[in-house]
């Protein structure tokens, strides 16, 4: 796109024009927002590096960040091979939570019987320290992906239910009256009023769910797995391979961040349509 085309395209909509305009103030504010936390993190890592060197902390106790970075580079194909099942199981757990959570929220919202019978139990279920139940899933579902994905769903679907339900019921009472007064069917009200209203709420639930889904998979891998980054962390610990533990954790952080970023991206795209 040439500059002229771009100017023309942004002419009819002043709001887009505003977004394109970059002034000194915006640059300074954005620089602050990005630079400040980055520099803080860099300072902490630098301090860590320095302390390891100054006090000559043995590698088996606490490896320096540089040693971890070196380890990541050296063993990248190996780490990546273990990252694949962890990532796939996290995504599977998240997607099932999404469908199950939204479905359950719709059921609870639409049916008074379901609301009264289910919702208190769903909330009560939430009070169980769920990690304590992880071994049960292994007993019931075996040591394959199924048990880890199921456990991941088990701990990540609740935020989706609560957030979706809050969104579905956040519709103005008078607006619902208006819908009834024009003879709208229940499904149309859901499709055109309740769901669009719930979109920002649903995404707040999904952002929690994606992190919980990963926690679920890693706990599952801790208990029983032959591969995956959780398994690798436990294995490395048994061998006192501290730099491998940290390398695995670093990779988990990157994957977690990337998955979270995807949810945020989906949110931005959806809110362009359904935001206010």
């Amino acid at each position, binding site marked *: 796109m040439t500059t002229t085309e771009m100017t023309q395209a942004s002419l009819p909509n002043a709001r887009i024009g505003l977004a394109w305009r970059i002034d000194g103030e915006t640059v300074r504010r954005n620089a602050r927002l990005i630079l400040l936390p980055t520099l803080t993190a860099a300072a902490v890592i630098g301090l860590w590096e320095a302390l390891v060197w100054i006090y000559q902390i043995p590698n088996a106790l606490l490896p320096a960040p540089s040693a971890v970075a070196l380890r990541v580079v050296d063993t990248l194909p190996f780490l990546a091979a273990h990252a694949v099942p962890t990532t796939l199981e996290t995504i599977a757990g998240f997607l099932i939570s999404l469908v199950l959570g939204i479905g359950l929220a719709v059921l609870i919202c639409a049916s008074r019987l379901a609301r009264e019978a289910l919702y208190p139990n769903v909330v009560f279920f939430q009070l169980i320290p769920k990690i304590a139940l992880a071994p049960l899933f292994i007993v019931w579902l075996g040591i394959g992906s199924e048990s880890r994905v199921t456990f991941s769903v088990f701990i990540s679907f609740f935020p989706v239910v609560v957030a979706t339900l809050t969104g579905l019921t956040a519709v103005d009472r008078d607006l619902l009256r*208006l819908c009834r007064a*024009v003879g709208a069917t229940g499904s149309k009200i859901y499709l055109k009023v309740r769901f669009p209203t719930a979109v920002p709420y649903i995404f707040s639930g999904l952002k929690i769910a994606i992190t919980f889904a990963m926690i679920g998979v890693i706990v599952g891998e801790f208990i029983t797995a032959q591969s995956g980054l959780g398994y690798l962390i436990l294995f490395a610990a048994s061998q006192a391979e501290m730099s491998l533990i940290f390398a695995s954790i670093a990779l988990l952080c990157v994957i977690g961040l990337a998955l979270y970023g995807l949810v945020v991206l989906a949110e931005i795209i959806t809110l362009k349509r359904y935001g206010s």
Partner: protein
Amino acid sequence: MLEDAFKAITATSVRKVYDTVSGQVEAVAEASFEIARGEFVAILGPSGCGKSTLMLMIAGLELPTAGAITVEGATVSQPQTDAGMMFQDPTLLPWRNVLENVLFPVDMRGAVGSDARARAERLLQMVDLWTFRDKRPRELSGGMRQRVALARALINDPRILLMDEPFSALDAITRDEMGLALARIWDTEPKTAIFITHSIREAIFLSDRILVMGRRPSTIVEDLRVPFKRPRDPSVEAEPEFNDLYLYLKNSIHRTTPSVQ
């Protein structure tokens, strides 16, 4: 008594009691009235006197505990699909633009055809918002949003128009402008209209007839005819009759409202 053929809305000994956690609440004790076709009726009263409940019952969104309401001869037993509604809040959908919001009732009922689009254009021109048709509600002022809600209420060409304090969230100046706009639109599209308000001036300026509701018990305590001719302009407020009516209504509301202890 009106001849049956001229009656748009009748209420016969209507009573409404809500069951709440803390017991029964009587929202409307007794209300009986007849509204002629094409009449603009204001229901005036203090807050909490059951005005809104009365409107919801006419719309068929609440059913009376006792008594009956008829609209165009038929007893109301389910939501009226032939009533345009306006509320205190515009209740627009924030993700739809002005035009899509006006077309919302058509969309909720079925497919949006070219007839509906033509009518939406006419209504938006009538409320001076056609040039804003692509804007989203957050880009509009409070008065503009309420004008969108008015156009939306009229989109299905309803036989009755029900308005529950539609201007009470607006500032005084915008409120006067909206009153004028509504009067002008009503002159071009006369409909049986019920306008709930607690502003006496608004009630006199807009309506053909004013029902005053009292509180505890909530019953209709006055039924007055407004003597001014249509079309009206703001100069009616300067007429001595306007002021007489204003003071009379003010006293009447004051008398029927138990003072706050």
